[in-house]
Structures are given as structure tokens and as C-alpha cells.
């Protein structure tokens, strides 16, 4: 047996003892490990005297070490029960953090289960290209979903040289009869759209068919994810087959990504045609991509546009930036968190109370712990706000809608605001020394004597560190709660509390 193998075996034996020591109750662990390490040293010397190494000796030493497992198990089984430890946990800072951790895990777990949230968590599916705007009649500037542009006007713009736009696309949604062969017939919401709509928006199309694009004879159709799953059972082989839409044959060229469409209107299928082939009449939506010059003019999310036509009077139009409206849940979350922090002083005081001048004030490390605890609460609260607001917004819906966006906005703001308020209230009711909730409230004084003497509530730290005075009626000389640090003369009252 070589010295190197001997060294490895020794390291294994020491490591084994260290691992086994984890079974021993923590209060006895250090002494247990010390005794077994000492015994191991003596056993080794007895089995392999004068540094002689042999497999036989190592077997004996290892057999000795294996006995440590039974010893540790015996100590563990006969250890005092943990009721006092659980009692100590009650009302402690750790209990609060564990509770928040549990809520975070539950909200995240729910997030994984809700299909709508799963879609929202993939921003690449719905984020459109930068520099896109939606052009509308200014008379409908408050109604983003209204279809206001006639297709004839759009064709005029297409044929005119544009300084501010380098790409334009039109779409108009209406119900049409669709026959899907063996999959049945029905009235679908059909979006008659410019051929470049999806490429202009930068939206991904799944199973995009090269064959379909090459077939110039038939218009292309992009199925919505919902229709693809509902009518075709999510079969990717449907791409390339022919549909009959409003009396015309069209070829299915792909499937839109789930939750990708964030523009006004809900379509079951997008019929991509040349602009000249889009049926005349009716109004639709126009999407435009800004040139550099156009971007320099668009300094806000809304811009007024004057459209001049040589034959007709000019139109008053407006443009909405898409980036504001397709920012996704993360943008809404950031906005509401900022808003909640700003609104917090309006619903509660942010003061932690006054502290008595005393030599018994907690040390710097204790104070650091206190602020660390506050930071940990907020750090756990913020992801809870994000996940819970998404859960609320997409509880009943699997697809993005304005309603779900507003629901997320309201939920995120409310949960964050009241969560922060709770965090502050909780912090104010915890002893600055041991971070346990102060208890045993006692009314002191009479309300009728507010101006002659103090009245309010006194609470006590069960470990005997502090007394908290909360004024019944805030006055100019006692406006906020005060902490009184107790000196050592109080200790005898709290010796049985078991909290240190």
C-alpha cells in the first residue's frame, strides 16, 4: 500500500466522520467530532504503529469509523424534541422570511402552470421592431382600436414617396366564411392584410412554408395559434394546404406565434395579399416603420401627422408608438413598482420611530441585521409582486389583451404598495435588538388627559430588550412611537423566556 493511497484513505475517514457528524444535534456536534477525531488518532496509532501502512490496518480503522454512524444516530434519536425551537421560531424574523419565501414559491409555481403567463414570459414572441407606429385619424386619437384609414387612402400613400416612413402595411379585420376542407366550415375573423405585414412588424411565423411563398398564384394565409390548435389539432402538416376564404382559395403559409399579435383586433387568420388586391371599401389599420428622419420628429409616443394629397384636402392624422403599447409585463411591473414607492409615504409614515438615548443601544452589527432584514423582506416582496400580478392578470385568459394588461397594472401596483406598507409596519413592530415582534400590549394613561399626561400603548419585547411606546394621539411632543432600551436590571424578569 503506497503512502499516497494511505493519505487518500485517511482523508476519506476524516471526511466520513465530518459527514456523519451532521446527524448529531448541533449543540453536541463539535464535542462529538472532537472525541471521534481524537479516538481515530489513537486507533490509527494502535492499528498501524510507527507509520506502518497496510490494508489490514486500514480495514480496522475504517471499521472503527463506521461505528460513528450508529453513535451519531443514537444521539440524534435521543435528542430532545424540537418543540422549544419551534416556539422560538414563532414571531421571529426567520419565520417571516420563510413565510415570504413560501409565498414566492407558490406564486412562481402558479406562474409556471398558467399558459397565459408562459406566453408573456417569452417577449421575443410579441415584441415588434423598434420604430413602428400605428397611423390613425386624429378624430379617433383616444381610441387605439378603431379602424379609421380607408384602403384607398393607404394605396395613395403607398404610391407616394415618403420621407418619414420606409415601410407601410395595412390590415382590416372582418368576418368571412372559411372552408377548411375536412376540418369544416365556419365564420372566421379574417384579417385582409398587406403582404409585408408580418415582416414589417418583425413577428415570428412558425412552420413558414417556402413552397407557399413560391406559389405566386394563391394568396398566403397565416393561421392564429388558437385556430391552428382548435381547428387543425396543432398539426404542422396543415401548412401548405389550401383553405377557401370568402370564395377564394388561399394557401396556409404558417402559424403565428402564440400570443404574438398585440395590435388592435383579433384575427383567426391573416390573409396576406398585394395591396392592390385588397378589396376596396371599409376602413382598416395602418402600420408604418419610421425612417431616421421620422424618428427624429417622433420625440414622444404620440405625434400629429399632416397628410397632403394633390386632389383632396389634407388629413389630420396621428401616430402612436408601438413600443409604449407592446412593452410587455416587465415594463408594466417596473412602472408600478416605481409608482408604489412614490405613493408609499401617502398611506403610511416611513419613520421607524424614535430611539431612547441609552448605552444599551444595539451594536452596529445588530443594526445592520435589522436593515438587512428590511432589505430581505423587500427583496422577497418584489418578485412576489411580479409573479402574483401576472397570475392575477392571466388567471382567466391565455392570451394577451388590454384587459389583462390593466389587470396586471392594478394588481402589481396594489400588491407592491400594500406589501411595502406591511413591510414597514412589520419592521416598526419588531424589537431592534432581536427582531422579534413586541407583544403584551398594555394601555397606559387616559385619553381625556392627553394634554396633561401621556397616554397610549406599551408593548414589550419578550426577550427583555426593549419597550415600545406608541402614542394614542400623536402630539407635537410625542408624534411617533418610541423605543426604550432596557438595561440589565430587567434581565431577571425575562430569564425564563428562552429568547436571547
Amino acid at each position, binding site marked *: 500500500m503506497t503512502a499516497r493511497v494511505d493519505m487518500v484513505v485517511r482523508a476519506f475517514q476524516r471526511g466520513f466522520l465530518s459527514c456523519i457528524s451532521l446527524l448529531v444535534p448541533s449543540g453536541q456536534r463539535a464535542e462529538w467530532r472532537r472525541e471521534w477525531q*481524537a*479516538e481515530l488518532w*489513537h486507533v490509527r496509532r494502535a492499528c498501524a504503529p510507527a507509520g506502518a501502512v497496510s490494508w489490514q490496518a486500514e480495514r480496522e480503522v475504517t471499521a472503527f469509523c463506521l*461505528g460513528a454512524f*450508529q*453513535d451519531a444516530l*443514537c444521539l440524534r434519536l435521543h435528542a430532545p424534541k424540537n418543540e422549544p425551537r419551534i416556539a422560538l421560531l414563532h414571531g421571529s424574523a426567520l419565520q417571516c422570511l420563510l413565510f415570504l419565501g413560501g409565498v414566492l414559491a407558490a406564486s412562481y409555481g402558479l406562474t409556471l402552470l398558467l399558459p397565459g403567463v408562459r406566453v408573456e414570459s417569452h417577449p421575443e414572441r410579441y415584441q415588434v421592431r423598434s420604430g413602428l407606429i400605428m397611423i390613425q385619424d386624429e378624430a379617433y386619437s383616444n381610441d387605439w382600436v378603431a379602424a379609421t384609414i380607408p384602403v384607398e387612402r393607404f394605396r395613395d400613400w403607398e404610391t407616394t414617396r415618403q420621407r418619414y416612413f420606409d415601410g407601410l402595411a395595412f390590415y382590416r379585420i372582418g368576418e368571412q366564411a372559411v372552408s377548411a376542407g375536412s376540418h369544416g366550415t365556419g365564420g372566421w375573423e379574417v384579417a385582409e392584410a398587406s403582404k409585408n405585414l408580418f415582416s414589417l412588424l418583425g413577428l415570428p411565423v412558425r412552420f413558414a412554408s417556402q413552397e407557399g411563398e413560391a406559389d405566386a398564384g394563391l394568396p398566403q394565409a397565416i393561421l392564429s395559434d388558437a385556430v391552428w390548435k382548435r381547428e387543425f389539432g396543432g398539426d404542422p402538416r396543415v401548412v401548405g394546404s389550401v383553405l377557401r376564404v370568402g370564395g377564394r382559395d388561399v394557401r396556409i403559409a404558417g402559424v403565428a406565434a402564440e400570443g404574438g399579435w398585440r395590435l388592435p383586433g383579433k384575427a383567426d387568420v391573416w390573409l396576406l395579399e398585394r395591396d392592390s388586391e385588397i378589396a376596396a371599401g371599409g376602413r382598416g389599420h395602418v402600420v408604418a416603420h419610421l425612417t431616421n428622419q421620422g424618428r427624429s420628429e417622433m420625440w414622444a409616443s404620440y405625434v400629429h401627422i399632416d397628410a397632403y394629397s394633390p386632389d383632396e384636402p389634407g388629413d389630420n392624422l396621428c401616430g402612436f408608438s408601438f413600443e409604449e403599447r407592446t412593452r410587455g409585463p416587465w415594463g408594466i411591473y417596473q412602472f408600478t413598482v416605481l409608482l408604489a414607492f412614490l405613493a408609499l409615504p401617502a398611506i403610511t409614515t416611513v419613520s421607524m420611530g424614535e430611539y431612547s438615548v441609552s448605552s444599551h443601544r444595539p451594536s452596529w452589527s445588530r443594526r445592520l441585521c435589522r436593515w438587512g432584514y428590511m432589505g430581505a423582506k423587500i427583496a422577497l416582496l418584489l418578485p412576489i409582486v411580479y409573479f402574483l400580478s401576472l397570475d392575477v392578470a392571466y388567471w382567466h385568459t391565455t392570451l394577451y389583451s388590454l384587459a389583462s394588461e390593466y389587470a396586471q397594472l392594478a394588481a402589481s401596483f396594489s400588491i407592491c404598495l400594500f406589501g411595502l406598507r406591511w413591510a414597514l409596519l412589520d419592521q416598526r413592530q419588531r424589537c431592534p435588538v432581536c427582531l422579534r415582534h413586541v407583544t403584551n400590549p398594555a394601555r397606559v394613561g387616559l385619553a381625556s388627559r392627553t394634554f396633561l399626561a401621556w397616554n397610549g400603548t406599551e408593548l414589550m419585547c419578550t426577550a427583555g430588550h426593549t419597550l415600545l411606546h406608541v402614542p394614542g394621539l400623536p402630539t407635537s411632543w410625542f408624534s411617533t412611537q418610541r423605543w426604550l432600551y432596557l438595561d440589565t436590571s430587567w434581565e431577571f424578569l425575562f430569564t425564563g423566556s428562552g429568547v436571547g
Partner: protein
Amino acid sequence: MASETKLSHTTALILHALDAGLVYGFSVMEMTGLPSGTVYPALRRLERDELICSQWERQSIADAEQRPARKYYKLTVAGRATLEASRRRYPLLERLIPTVEAKQV
């Protein structure tokens, strides 16, 4: 712990070994031939029942001999009474353990 405490044969054997004086776990193993997985848990139980008590060797002694300090066990008064009772119960115990001179810490 009352002197009428009934001990198993193995535990009585360990108690008998400890009667040799201040001894440590490994020496009990050597004296009794029992494995470590039996001796050490038995020592814990005897100590919990206050039949024996333990004491760490002074570090200076261990340092002088260039070895780690050991934990020694010795019988308490109750333990000695229990041992006497177990001797009556297991009369052959005396023959299993050779007489050992008391060791001093």
C-alpha cells in the same frame, strides 16, 4: 438513577470495563472486544442516565505527549451501585474482563 436499574449484558460489560478507572472509548473496545458502534452509543446512554460521567483530558497533558486530548469516562456513585447490582445479576462478568490497574488522568 436507582441501583436497581436493569442493564443489558453488553452494557453491564461496558460498565464493568469502566470500573477499571478513568478510561476512554477505544480502551473499552479493547477490553470488551465490542465494536465501536456498540461501545460509544452505550456510553452515551450511560452518561444520559447519570451512571457515568465524562471529562476531557487537560490539553497541556495531551500537548506534552504530542497527541489529541481524549475524553475519559468514569463511574458515578449511582453507576457504581448499578454495577454492584449487575454483578449479582451477571456473576460471570468478572471473568470476562481482566483486572486493570486504574489509570490516572
